[in-house]
Structure formats: C-alpha cells, structure tokens
C-alpha cells in the first residue's frame, strides 16, 4: 500500500514550493487567481473523464459544482465537527460531504445518459445544470437568488498564513483528483470507459456493462466537481446561483476540448491557460479602456477548433508528447 502512495506524496511536496513562491512573491490578487487555477484543474480533469475518456458529452458540470459549493458553504456555517485546532480537517470533511452530494446528483444525471447520445445528451445535461441552478434560486434557506455570504475560509494555524492553508487545501485535492483519475483511466476500468467511447455496441457485446460505466463516470466526475465547488466557495466566500450558470459549464468544456479530448495533462494545461488568459488580458483592458477579454477568448476558441480540432495535446498525455516532439528534435 505504501509503495503506491509514493508518487502522490512526492508530487504534493513538490508543489508546495509553488505555494511558497506565491506566498512571498506575489500580491493577493495573483494568489486568488492561482487558487482558481487549482479549482479549474480539478473541474477540467473530472469533466475529461466524462467527455474525453467515456465519450459522453456533458454540458452540465457547473450544476455539480453548484451542489458541492452550497453543501460545503451551508455545512461550514452550521456545523463544526472538529475543535478549532483541527480547523483544516473540518474543511476536508465539508469537501467530502460536498463531493458525495454532488456524486448523488451525478448518479441522477447519469440515468438519461443511458438512452441519449451526443447533442441530445448535451442538452439534457445542460437542462439538469439549469434546473439545479433554478432550484437553488428558490431555496430561501440557502439565500435564494442572493446566495450565501461570509462563507468561512480556511483558518490560519500551525504557522501557516491564510493563503498557504487555502493553497494546501486546494493542492491536496488537486493531487488526489489527479492520481485517482490517472490510475482509474490506466486500469481495466479505464479501458472499459474508453471502449464505451469507441463503440458502445461492440463494448456491450464484449461484456462491458456500458450503462454502469457511464453512470460511474458521471458519479466520479460529479464527486470531484463537487469538491471543486466546495473549494471555490471557501475561496470566494460568497456564492450565488448565477455564478454556476450555463457559461461556467461551457468554460470547463472548453478546457477539456482545448486541452485535447481524453488527455488529462492536456486538460490541466488548458485549465491553467483558460484561467490565466482573462487575467492577463485584463492589463490590455486598462490600455484600450474596453473589456476585450471575452472577445479575444471566444475568437481564440474558434481558431483553435478550426486549426487544431484535436486540441493542443490531442489524445496524448504530456510524456507521449515529450517523447514524440522533444526527443526527436534533440
């Protein structure tokens, strides 16, 4: 058991360096953006499991994120399981709770995916996302349209500043999500998911229970989307139904498609790019005085789809790219 924990722990420690660099080198505005990068990486990796690996096109990922965000926000305001000193672990519990709730909704949304394909499934998942948003809009105990304010954030403690504890919390989940998904995809279960994408009828004939595979993909992806929702709730400390609308789902789909369908490292790279692009362009906004961010973002999207339909990484992961492009040239 221990041998298998080596890689995740090592990469977790490795990335703490980035946190330290951010802590001392940069302003809070850049730190918040870095936290959002972690949130989007988890969203992109988890959606990649559904859209990329299993070939089921979901346009409702923000719905699961919303469920996670609300569950974590509400529970953190009303229930403190562990004493103050272990405050950090409280948030892990809230995030797991958020993930489980979102996973349940993933199970629900998974059902229609058994009968519908392609565009129809995309529209139904979009519908689910919107229904979750409107349901939240009508729940007054969750603040209705006005959302929840002053959501508690990660406590300082053990010599860590607020940002560091937020960063570690996010990093913990990013590394966990990465290794869980990476190992599932590179196992027999992962191959079964790929077979559903390739040819459902052949997969079923070869003994793959395609329905349970699809539902499983939705449930796992929804769990991590819920966790990402919980993270963003505690980072922004204010959530409202409108921040989890249809456009948020589109953002995540764009990360998956831009990165390359089925490529996890592609999704990570695209998630970083898509999160940073608007912030980098914000500088441009001061020059031109006009907010060109979204115009450039949507134009870039169209051009990538036409020039590089396979996405930046295609179906390959970073190591394959490394072998193919870097080694050959050296």
């Amino acid at each position, binding site marked *: 058991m221990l041998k298998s924990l080596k890689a995740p722990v090592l990469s977790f420690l490795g990335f703490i360096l980035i946190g330290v660099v951010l802590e001392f080198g940069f302003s809070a505005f850049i730190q918040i953006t870095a936290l959002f990068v972690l949130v989007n990486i988890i969203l992109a990796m988890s959606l990649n499991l559904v859209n990329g690996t299993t070939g089921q096109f979901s346009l409702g990922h923000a719905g699961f994120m919303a469920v996670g965000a609300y569950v974590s926000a509400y529970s953190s305001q009303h229930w403190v399981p562990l004493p103050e000193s272990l405050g950090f672990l409280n948030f892990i519990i809230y995030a797991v709770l958020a993930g489980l709730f979102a996973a349940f909704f993933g199970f629900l949304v998974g059902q229609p995916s058994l009968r519908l394909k392609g565009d129809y499934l995309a529209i139904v998942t979009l519908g689910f996302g919107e229904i979750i948003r409107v349901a939240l809009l009508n729940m007054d105990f969750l603040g209705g349209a006005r959302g929840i304010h002053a959501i508690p954030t990660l406590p300082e403690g053990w010599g860590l500043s607020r940002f560091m504890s937020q960063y570690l919390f996010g990093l913990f989940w990013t590394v966990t999500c990465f*290794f869980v998904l990476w190992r*599932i995809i590179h*196992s027999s*279960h992962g*191959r079964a998911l790929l077979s559903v994408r390739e*040819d459902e009828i*052949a997969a079923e004939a*070869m*003994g793959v229970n395609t329905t349970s595979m699809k539902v499983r993909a939705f449930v796992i992806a929804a769990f991590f989307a819920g966790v990402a929702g919980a993270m963003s709730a505690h980072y922004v400390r204010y959530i409202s139904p409108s921040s989890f609308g249809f456009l948020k789902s589109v953002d995540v789909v764009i990360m998956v498609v831009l990165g390359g369908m089925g490529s996890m490292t592609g999704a990570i790279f695209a998630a970083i790019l898509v999160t940073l692009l608007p912030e980098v362009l914000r500088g441009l906004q001061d020059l031109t005085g006009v907010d060109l961010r979204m115009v450039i973002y949507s134009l870039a999207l169209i051009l990538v789809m036409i020039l590089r339909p396979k996405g930046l990484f295609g179906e390959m992961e970073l190591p394959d790219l490394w072998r193919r492009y870097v080694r050959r040239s050296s």
Partner: protein
Amino acid sequence: MSDALLEVSGITMRFGGLKAVDNLSFTLKKGQLGGLIGPNGAGKTTVFNMLTGVYRPTHGDVKLGGRSMVGLRPYQISHHGLTRTFQNIRLFKNLSVLNNVLIATHQHARTGLWAAVARNQAFRKEDREMRERALDLLKIFKLDGKADEQAGSLPYGQQRQLEIVRAMATQPKVILLDEPAAGMNHSETHSLMETIARIRQDFQLTVLLIEHDMKLVMGICENIVVLDHGVKIEEGAPERIRSSPKVIEAYLGVEEE
C-alpha cells in the same frame, strides 16, 4: 436434448409489420460447429442480434446451457459465455490491439475501483495476468508483434482476426462468427479454416458461423441451418443441404416454366 448447449426455440423478430425472422428453431451441441446460411437479407444477422441480446425476440426463447437468455442485456449474455464478431468490423479503432483484447477480459476482473486507485498487490498481479493471457491469445493469430499498434491501422484480414481474438478473450462457451471470411482471398480463407478448427479443439469452443463462402461452410460445418426470408427452409449435414431442392431454389431461383 440434454447435451444441447444452445437451444433456439421458435424465435420471431417483428419490425412493425415485417417479420424479419419467423418462428426459427435449432440447437447446437457442445463442441459442434454449426452453419447459418441463406441469401442476402434472409435475416441471418438479425438472428445473431437476437441471440446476443441486441434485439429482444418478439417471442420464442433462447437457452444457453439450459438458462434462458431472452431479456438479458448483451453484456450479461456475454458473461454467460456467448460472444460474437460483427459483419462490418467493430473494433475499437483508436485503441491499441492489446487494449482491444484487454477490454474483453475486463468482465473477469476481480479487483474493484479502489484496488485500481490504491494500485495494491492484487491489482498489479491481476493486471499482469490479464496482459499475459491477452498476449497468448494474440500469439495464436501471430498478432502479438503488433500489440501496441492502433487497431484501425491493421490490414483488413488482420482486423478480422483481431475481432475473433477479442471475442475469445471473453472466455466464451459459444462463439458466433458473422462472415469471418468476407473479403478474404483463397489462402487467407484456408488459414482461417485451420484456425477455427484449432481454437475449437484447444478451447473446447462451440461455434456458429454465418458465411457465404460455400466451400468454407461445406468444408467445416457439421450442421447447417438454411434461412430464407426469415424462415428455416432446411437443416442438416452439409451433404443433405447440398442436394436439397428448396435450398437450390432459394439461392438460384426457379427456372422459368
């Protein structure tokens, strides 16, 4: 009846008004090599689809080893040991040859999702075994050299063979081959006949074959069922089929009086 492995009794498939298959019955004994022939559009592939659960027969029953398969999902039927190849090849084109076979062995994987995430002993052992078994199967058709190539990039003949290997990887009792020799030249068909004989013997497999190549069918099938417009018009050993007037008429049509 007792040693009949596959019993098909009175299965009918109705699409709206059209009866694609009408009240078909036949049996297949353990280890036997059966043939299912008939002119184009006779309903042969529809029969295969009914046996494997893709279509649910409008009525009639299909028993495998005494258990009824009607109403079960294709993957459940595959777990019971009945597998197939497809008339137009349905390989997982973008995946590697090895992965195509490994997917078929997934149903026998014991280790669960958590084992995969934890990468524990049991998971690594089973993963190794699955790969070895898959490579052994590939060796039969000498495809093990191309294990890492994309299935879609193989030449046509080898893609056909890979589909058979993939079907065998589900550790079936009965294997349904849907026109395996389609598009093959003479020597390829000959080596296919040898391979089918060998896998029947090595793996005690029962085989049901849809084929247009009469030389192949008459050569290796022990019992042949002839379908025409969804109705069984003849059944029996190859000699009986070769001489039966009804079969000739169905294939060659009746001379103008």
